């Protein structure tokens, strides 16, 4: 590659001040770019892009029933992403939310599996709490490994997710398998009291959605208004300054992972005690990984994440629709998610940088001596 070849490319020049406009436009640009790329891919695959577009982006909004499913799907994504974003801002990369979600589901299921005869309105709140604790405990392993053993939290949390999936399989094929379940890998159906009460009659939307919204508000207050949230952010932006100010790195890591694990565990509990009503193999459909994208797409900001969780939920529901109506493989959703994050990472560069074309750079150089 000759120097002249490289010089003909536009270069990134740091802006004097970050562009607020670019911050808001970036997710939308990413969405449009991902849409164009993926629709082209569907066209290459011989699918009708208009039909896919209709099924993916319009159908979810066409009836209250399908929109309520979008909200239902947005719940766990929103909850997990809020927890992860707090850690990401502190540069603690917990990417094991999938495992923390599974452990939350397992912990919550312990009550109806072990005490199927129990009754009372205390059961579902106890399950949610137990699930959150389970998720936090699983995440605390990563925190211990990182703080005490200096191990990379990305690798440890991911490995623990793979272990969690095996643990779930073990329970469902072994001790927790429903004896009357025709040998399917799933637990007994939960009794009525082990289910989170429905919010709106006729939909599957339940009280956990309100809890999720309340916790989103709490995340906003915590990150934008509290001193602890401030300490976390300083730790992420300027670790050295945080050290001089006496903010402990270990504290940051523990708090980030415990919050992330708590939120993911709660989401897992709400899933088994909500729309699923039992512990199954396919409890997650990749929420833990999708939530990472949701967190970034929302600019790691509690309000942005509310919007991006809805967008991601539409992609999930729309992907299901397109699978049925346009014969699109479900893997297309993952391709879309990956390209969406890549598009966002490109678009977000324009918050801090602007493009400068070689010609304008030369002009600027000519002008500057005067």
């Amino acid at each position, binding site marked *: 590659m000759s120097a002249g070849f490289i010089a003909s490319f536009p270069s990134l020049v740091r802006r004097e001040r970050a562009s607020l406009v670019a911050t808001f436009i970036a997710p939308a640009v990413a969405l449009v770019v991902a849409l164009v790329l993926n629709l082209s891919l569907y066209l290459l695959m011989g699918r009708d892009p208009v039909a896919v577009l209709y099924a993916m982006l319009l159908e979810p909004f066409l009836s209250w029933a399908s929109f309520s499913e979008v909200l239902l799907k947005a719940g766990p994504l929103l909850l997990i992403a809020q927890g992860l974003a707090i850690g990401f801002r502190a540069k603690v990369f917990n990417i094991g939310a999938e495992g923390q979600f599974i452990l939350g589901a397992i912990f919550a299921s312990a009550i109806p599996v072990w005490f199927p005869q129990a009754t009372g309105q205390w059961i579902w709140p106890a399950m949610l709490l137990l699930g959150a604790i389970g998720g936090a405990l699983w995440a605390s392993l990563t925190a211990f490994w990182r703080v005490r053993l200096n*191990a*990379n939290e990305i690798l440890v949390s991911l490995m623990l997710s793979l272990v969690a999936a095996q643990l779930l399989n073990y329970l469902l094929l072994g001790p927790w398998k429903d004896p009357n379940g025709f040998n399917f890998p799933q637990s007994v159906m939960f009794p009525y009291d082990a289910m989170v009460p429905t919010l709106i009659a006729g939909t599957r939307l339940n009280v956990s959605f309100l809890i999720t919204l309340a916790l989103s508000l709490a995340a906003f207050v915590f990150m934008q208004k509290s001193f602890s949230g401030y300490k976390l952010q300083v730790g992420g932006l300027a670790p050295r300054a945080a050290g001089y100010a006496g903010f402990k790195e270990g504290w940051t890591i523990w708090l980030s992972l415990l919050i992330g694990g708590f939120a993911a565990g709660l989401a897992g509990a709400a899933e088994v005690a909500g729309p699923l009503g039992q512990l199954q193999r396919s409890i997650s459909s990749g929420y833990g990984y999708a939530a990472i994208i949701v967190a970034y797409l929302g600019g790691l900001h509690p309000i942005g994440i509310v919007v991006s969780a809805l967008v991601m939920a539409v992609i999930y529901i729309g992907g299901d629709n397109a699978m049925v109506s346009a014969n699109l493989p479900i893997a297309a959703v993952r391709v879309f998610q990956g390209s969406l*994050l890549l598009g966002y990472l490109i678009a977000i560069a324009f918050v801090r940088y602007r493009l400068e074309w070689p010609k304008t750079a030369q002009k600027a150089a000519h002008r500057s001596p005067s």
Partner: protein
Amino acid sequence: MNAIEFILAGMLAAATPFLLAALGELVVERAGVLNLGVEGLMALGAVLAFIFVYHGGGHFLGFVAAGLGSAALSLIFAFVTLGFRANQVAAGLAIGILGQGLSALFGKTYESLTVKGLPRLAVPGLSDIPVVGGLFVQDIVVWISLLATFVIWVMFAYSKLGLVIRAVGENPKAAHAIGYSVITVRVLAIAFGGAMAGFAGAYAAVIYTPLWADGMIAGRGWIAIALVVFGTWMTGRIFLGACLFGAVSLMGLAAQATGLDVPSQLLSSLPYLVTIIVLGIISADRRLLKLNGVASLGEPFER
């Protein structure tokens, strides 16, 4: 054949996907870039190789397709992280998700189909030694992987190219100042890492277990990244680590064969648990990591 002979004979083949991907990631990280997308790059390589071999293209073309395809995907990573200075962790995760999605998409109509593997070639004489003889009966790709390990070791230890890559990773500003193009070196390193991950996936899908199943990489890409840390960025140690993981992944099979009453899920999670434990042990020696680590790992380069 007892358990030890079984593990010795199969260890190198089981280690090869880990080894190839980890060697690629080693070069990438030595150049100062952290690419976490290995799992997805391997998955894409695996499905491309499988499709080529399934349709009679042969193993050689299968590996070529896997290498080219995964290198192309890794260049998207390079475009985003080097061109737009994006967060390498997030971009790596995105490439991983994209690669796994693409592999599932391309592989949908091939689910559970099988192809023929490659014959194993014996080293005359050595392969007749009792107990360890199995080590010397391997397919051609294993032999090439061993050669590649040696070549990469020589490159980092003795060649100017190795020095340039390390300089770019240790102190990109200084490397730039003395006239090396940091971006060019990093792009090439990323493409190399992508191709190696593609080969690793291809080996897994058309030779080691010659069948296609969605998710068949099963965390091996992530273990390969961990191997680079285990080996503290040194070629020889990464090779030993890959052998360890080859042996660990066979232990499950060996244990089942002896009729040991352990849940199969525990055996399946053995490589993950070993990764977690070894990662803890190695990382606890902070001095070792600091000494051998790559100074500018994961940081974008700005002139």
